[in-house]
């Protein structure tokens, strides 16, 4: 039996169809040609805000790392000169390789822990040790000894998981993905290790900033000198503590054999990374003129290529 199509039925269907078409049109029109919003671009905070920092440099020699760190800070103007109480300090060591401490491919874990301890003792809210490694991160954390020593000193050791796009405004690097943790700290301390590098000549303070980059940072090798200068110019760290307890003289930057490293027992405190790199070039027995990054950085006004100008003192704690 057929049901007649009465007025009520007509109105019901009419409204159903009307509602459905209105809804779909609204939906389509809303999404029509809607462009995805651009990713937000961040920039580095000023890690030297409210601090009076002059280019200075102190070279220390010795085996007692605790004493070295204490003397070093005292000599370069006191630790309170480099941060304010209650701030978050980020230590950026070289923690890139799946290598043991004695192989000298990463920053000495005991030096890192001493620096973390002294900051915590003097009233830092938190000390974070972070780097983006080249090898598998968990193996690097364990094998470098930095996870163990860093945690023992009371610092937080981590490898950033998320990246954010940061404006560098350099010649080679205009924007690049950076681990988010590196922008969250109040002060950033560069803690490189001195090594030879087949492409860049040496890797020390300036090249260490590669470690904050995420994504396909390997592409930057195409213009390595300019990119390290761009990085150094953008980050402007608070202080740089160069680990030359062991320096890698061959097979850099990975090494692997104990014959690749030479024990020097030197630590350098500097506020000028370019001068630090100049010193490192010299200790590795290379000529400063061969390192194009130094001359590019000097031209950009990032520092001096004559570290003796700013060298405050050389302290030998061994004697």
């Amino acid at each position, binding site marked *: 039996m057929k049901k007649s199509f009465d007025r009520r039925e007509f109105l019901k269907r009419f409204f159903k169809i009307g509602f459905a078409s209105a809804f779909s049109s609204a939906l389509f029109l809303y999404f029509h040609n809607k462009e995805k919003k651009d990713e937000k671009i961040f920039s580095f905070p000023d890690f030297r805000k409210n601090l009076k920092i002059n280019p200075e440099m102190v070279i220390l020699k010795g085996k007692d790392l605790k004493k070295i760190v204490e003397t070093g800070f005292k000599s370069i103007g006191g630790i309170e000169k480099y941060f304010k109480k209650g701030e978050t300090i980020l230590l950026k060591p070289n923690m890139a390789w799946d290598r043991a401490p004695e192989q000298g491919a990463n920053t000495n874990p005991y030096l890192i822990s001493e620096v973390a301890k002294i900051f915590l003792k003097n009233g830092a809210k938190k000390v974070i040790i972070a780097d983006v490694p080249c090898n*598998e991160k968990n193996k690097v954390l364990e094998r470098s000894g930095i996870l163990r020593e860093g945690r023992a000193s009371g610092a937080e050791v981590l490898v950033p998981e998320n990246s954010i796009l940061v404006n560098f405004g350099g010649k080679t690097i205009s924007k690049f993905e950076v681990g988010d943790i590196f922008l969250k700290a109040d002060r950033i301390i560069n803690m490189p290790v001195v090594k030879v590098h087949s492409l860049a000549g040496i890797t020390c303070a300036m090249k260490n900033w590669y470690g904050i980059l995420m994504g396909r940072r390997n592409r930057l090798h195409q213009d390595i000198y300019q990119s390290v200068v761009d990085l150094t110019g953008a980050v402007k760290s608070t202080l740089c503590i160069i680990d030359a307890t062991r320096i890698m003289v061959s097979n850099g930057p990975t090494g692997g054999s104990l014959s690749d490293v030479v024990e020097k027992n030197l630590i350098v405190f500097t506020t000028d990374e370019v001068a630090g790199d100049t010193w490192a070039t010299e200790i590795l027995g290379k000529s400063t003129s061969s390192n194009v990054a130094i001359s590019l950085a000097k031209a950009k006004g990032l520092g001096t290529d004559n570290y003796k100008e700013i060298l405050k003192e050389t302290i030998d704690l061994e004697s």
Partner: protein
Amino acid sequence: MNLKTIRLIYQIFFFFSFFILIILATPFVWKEEDFSQVPYPTNFFLEISPLHSISTLLSTGIVYKNLILSLFVIILTLIFGRVFCGWICPFGTLHQFFSWIFHLKKESIKQNTYKKSYKIKYFILIFFLISAFLGLNLEGFLEPLSLMYRSISTSFLSILLSNFIKADYSHGWFLGIFFIFLIFLNFIFPRFWCRVLCPLGALLGLLSFSPLFKINKKEGCTSCNKCLKNCQGGDEPHKEHYQRECIVCLNCISPCPEKVLSYSFLGKITEKGKLDLSRRSLIFTIFGSLLIPSLIKSSAGRKKFLNYNMIRPPGALEESEFLKRCIKCGSCMKICPTNALHPAFSETTFEGIWTPVLIPKIGYCAQNCNLCSLVCPTGAIVPFTIEEKIAKPIRIGSAVIDPSRCLPYAYGTPCIVCEEMCPTSPKSIYFEEKEIDVRGEKKSIKLPKVDLKYCNGCGICENKCPIQSHPAIYVISAGETRQKENKILL
């Protein structure tokens, strides 16, 4: 507490310990300082499977290391019947759970009667054992523990614990779907896999021809069929009782209104219900089993057809020996800290499907790592120490530079990321400095070269090469230590 409850507790315990052991096979949950030792018996379930030990015994002539543990299961079966299937096997527990879910509202007596299809598993077992004897170890495809370990670790764990275990596997999706398919077979009737397909169940069924403890029936059965209501094996205790199908679930004892059934020592030996694989089908199976492996071997296993382009984990045996031993369990893939090992599919021939291959583009072989060799339950990967790996060195292949897309060679752009990453000392990638002319502009460039004397084929160069889609430096298996025919250097 009756026996049934105890069984359930056992099942739940073994099921969860199976999962926990898989999760513990992730190196970064360990507290140890170095990763040169596996602190947990992560392979326990793989090593207690008698099918693995018997099959590798047939194909290679030895029972490897911890596979001796499977003797325990054999003796257990001879005494108590198929308790392994009903009480221990985690795959069986999973099937029992889903059978229960799928058949909640259905009349289940009919589904739990004995069916002729239950014989299929014996033919599968015969096929696997004969092919193993002919040197083709195929049981890993369907051995339940291997199958479960592989499927769980390569597909489900990487979804469920993706934040914790950061490992994904090439075509893990397929293994996952195959696993789900096997679970859905329980719609046909409960425990379809265990009753019809499982080759390990068949082996244990043959072993439980006359166990000391079994279901015994006193006089007075009225054939009410109530015992069949939850029967897991479908073995009809009220009639002839197909002893080899009984998985000792003990679900038949309490429902019996006459109380004639009991699980007890010895009792009457029933000759009825014995395995009746008809002579004709048995002969067909044996001939088929002789023929098919030979056919597979005629194309796949022969040396000249070997796919030399697949990179095996370090320490792997020579290919034909490797295939004889590999049970495709996936424990090496699970434990690999760099996610370098993946189940093979198109890389290899039929018999090698789901064996481990190293894909450097996804993950490289870490220099200070020997975990895959430590966990291999059958010795397809021979254990080695890290010192051996570096000093010998154990090579898995050789790096090859393709100058047609390598940045310095093809485009005159400095790069040598591969040289920077190379972990050997001295570096196996060195460079030659050369004056080049790029559109009239003279410049000096460093061209990477490979020194095969030091290269161990770890693949970090391929992994880190800035040319991502087709790395300009890649690893080929030529030069690997394991195969004499594939060596390059004198």
